[in-house]
């Protein structure tokens, strides 16, 4: 499977082609078991991330991007049924026991959440949360863990690190909290960091600072980064490649520069057109009509068909993810690449 992915044309232009693959997700599907049976949430998601590379998982709320990340981390809800294979640093981890999966967390995978205020413990000190992780994962002594924690805080640009270690999350500003979260995620030297909407809750100027920090950390530590977001402009700026999801499906995959400039899938095009353009005056926006179908009410065939302006009878059957121009798209009638 590695060979298959490595041979994708999209990868040929990837800046990180020569490095090893850290994470490989192949045919990942996830359903939630409830009283009425199995509810599919995510179907057939495949992508790979190389060392030092940032891959974006893009989509609107409910597209399944966050739960995909939780499946990779092994912290999906208890009632989730997961199919497909997940390979981390060459080891197939999807078949491992929950206990073995947990051992990979922290040490090999770090996680950054959207809301650091709620993602950090409210009544344990910052230092305690960091040293717990360091001591458990790396077997450090209390003193070693404390000084390592202080170094980490220093590294993510937090002044007075020793004082902050004694403090609590509610005493920090939003940007500082997210820096602590980042320090925690990279604390045990993971090869993969998954960031779930890490800057959505932040102000614009702080968002820029935190994005820069993430970018720096990725380069300095040669991290593979899975960046989950709804914001295509952030993707264009900070990610090498992008995977666009819609209604639990991957609809487009390729270099993020290509997708942002000239997407093949009408949904990706719609997402770009829906954002007000910087250098435009009073023109109308081009919205995507209708709304995302709820989970469990996906149409057969192409799931975007009911909202698509290029739809025809063929769209009643499910298209495959195929190469169109420079990117791969799951579409019968992809857009022509623009010059």
């Amino acid at each position, binding site marked *: 499977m590695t060979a298959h992915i490595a041979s994708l044309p999209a990868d040929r232009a990837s800046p990180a082609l020569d490095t090893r693959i850290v994470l490989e997700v192949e045919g990942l599907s996830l359903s939630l078991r409830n009283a009425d049976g199995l509810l599919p949430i995510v179907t057939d998601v495949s992508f790979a991330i190389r060392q030092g590379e940032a891959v974006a998982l893009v989509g609107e709320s409910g597209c399944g991007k*966050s739960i995909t990340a939780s499946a990779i981390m092994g912290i999906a809800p208890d009632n989730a049924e997961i199919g497909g294979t997940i390979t981390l640093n060459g080891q197939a981890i999807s078949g491992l026991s929950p206990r073995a999966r947990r051992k990979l967390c922290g040490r090999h995978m770090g996680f950054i959440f959207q809301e650091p205020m709620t993602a950090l413990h409210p009544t344990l000190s910052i230092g305690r949360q960091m040293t717990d992780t360091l001591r458990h994962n790396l077997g450090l002594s209390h003193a070693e863990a404390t000084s390592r924690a202080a170094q980490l805080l220093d590294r993510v640009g937090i002044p007075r690190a020793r004082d902050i270690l004694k403090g609590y999350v509610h005493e920090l500003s939003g940007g500082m909290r997210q820096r602590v979260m980042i320090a925690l995620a990279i604390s045990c030297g993971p090869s993969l960091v998954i960031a779930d909407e890490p800057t959505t809750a932040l102000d614009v100027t702080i968002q820029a600072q935190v994005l820069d920090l993430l970018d720096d950390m990725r380069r300095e530590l040669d991290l593979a980064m899975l960046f989950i977001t709804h914001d295509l402009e952030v993707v264009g700026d900070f990610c090498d490649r992008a995977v666009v999801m819609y209604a639990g499906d991957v609809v487009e995959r390729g270099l993020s520069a290509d997708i942002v400039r000239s997407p093949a899938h009408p949904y990706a095009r719609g997402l770009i057109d829906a954002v007000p353009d910087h250098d435009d005056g009073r023109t109308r926006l081009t919205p995507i009509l209708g*709304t995302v179908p709820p989970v469990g009410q996906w149409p057969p065939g192409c799931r975007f068909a009911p909202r698509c302006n290029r739809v025809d009878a063929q769209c009643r059957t499910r298209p495959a993810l195929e190469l169109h121009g420079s990117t791969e798209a799951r579409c019968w009638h992809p857009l022509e690449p623009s010059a």
Partner: protein
Amino acid sequence: MSIIQATSPDRLPGGDEESFVTTNKTVWQRLLTNPTAMTSVVMLVVLGLSAILAPVLAPGNPLKVSPADRFIAPGAEHFFGTDNLGRDMFDMVLHGGRTSLFVGLVVTVISMSIAVALGAISGFYRHVDVVLMRLVDGLMAFPGIVLATAAAGILGPSMTTVITALSIVLIAPSLRIVRGQVLVVRELQMIEAARSVGVPTLRLFTRYILPAVSSPILVQASFIFSAAVLGEAGLSFIGVGIGPKELSWGNALTEARNYIAQAPWIVLFPGLALMLTILALNLLGDSLRDILDPRLARRR
């Protein structure tokens, strides 16, 4: 936050221009299909009917003494047996239920009405709130039954005393809940939206705030009912309740405890009736909470 909730199906936006989100069952449908709720309703209907129909089911004075029939074990003649004075326990339980349920109902209505009125004022006027909440603090921490005992001792045991004492004691917890809910609702954006539209204060209260707090009030009322039934029985049991001339489940147990070795049934049945009533009310409160507040229900 985002990991589980963003993708949980019930939070997804759904429907488009012509097809709206398919709605869940109405409150009534949920009530009727909730086994716990229906069990409690059936229990309460049976208990209520037997209290109302007690004079028909057990005619005559249940307190009439019949020394020849002392300590008859439960059987076909006397379903629940007889006590130390030869009184039929079945009759006593039926008639005792009238007192318990009557006191419970009246106390619930009185304390909840006052709590809603005061809670509304308290939720809207800061200075009233400060005073009222300190009073509530004082009343909440202190054991109501001790206060009611003192009150009953001073005012003399009677049904009025019991109802007054329990009403006062039970206003405090209800008031705190109503006030808390009003404070939450008051901060909702729909209230600001209504104010910005120009909705007058009184209409704001009746059309926006009261409907929003009605569910917790209903839930609280069933718990207050159960607390009142328990309180009456407790007061009557220690002899400062409705007085020995009236029948109540608590009263019946006062003397029964001296004969527990000879005739355990005279302790068993009034207590069982009491417990089933309280159980039914608690179950009703629990299931109402589940039905009216789906956010909490998902947890069960």
